[in-house]
């Protein structure tokens, strides 16, 4: 089985953006950002594109597929 891992937390802290601010910028709640960073929520393509725009990084760099046993 495959899952999606992301480096949103790393990129966000690198750019000095708070979870609240990122949530505001991409139009979701802070809890969604928390879940996304924990890896327990897989975002829609639209949200992924918005995050990619805000963090100024390509989707492929932020989100990568990973095999889970």
């Amino acid at each position, binding site marked *: 089985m495959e899952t999606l891992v992301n480096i949103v937390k790393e990129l966000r802290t690198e750019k000095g953006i708070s979870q609240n601010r990122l949530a505001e910028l991409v*139009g*979701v*709640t802070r*809890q*969604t950002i928390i*879940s996304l960073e924990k890896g*327990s*929520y897989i*975002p*829609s393509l*639209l*949200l992924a594109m918005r995050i990619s725009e805000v963090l100024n990084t390509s989707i492929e760099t932020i989100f990568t597929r990973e095999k889970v046993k």
Partner: protein
Amino acid sequence: MKRIIFQCVGNTLLFTLMGLAFLFPFTDIIQDEYGFSGTVAIFPFLLIAHIILYPIVYKIAAKKLHWGRKANSELSYADEREKAITAESAKTAYKVFVGGLLTVVAAVGGFRFFSLAAGVDISIYAVTVVLLVLLLNVGMVSYCVKWCREYNR
């Protein structure tokens, strides 16, 4: 999450008051050839008070806790994740309601049969109201529990 818990508590209270108001609408009922007379019990008044006050309290809470306009009604959501959670929770509640309704129908039939077979006078109306109110409350609580569990994942 606070919004969902608030709605769940409000709805549970509404269902319970509704059940009580339908079960005990009057006290001191006197029946005669012209119909009946009696005093209206406290429960219908409590039900009306809840129906009037709940939306006001909800609006105040929504303003204070910044719930926003987008997610202000039943089964509403603030973003795509909440939408998925709401759908999952509604599915759980649906299963509870459908399974529960079948059980209620069977139970009402069972009570009726027992009433006839044992010669015991059982109010089918009261049994039905109690079972339906229980089902509504269980369905509402299961929706709320599922929502909160999914939200905190």
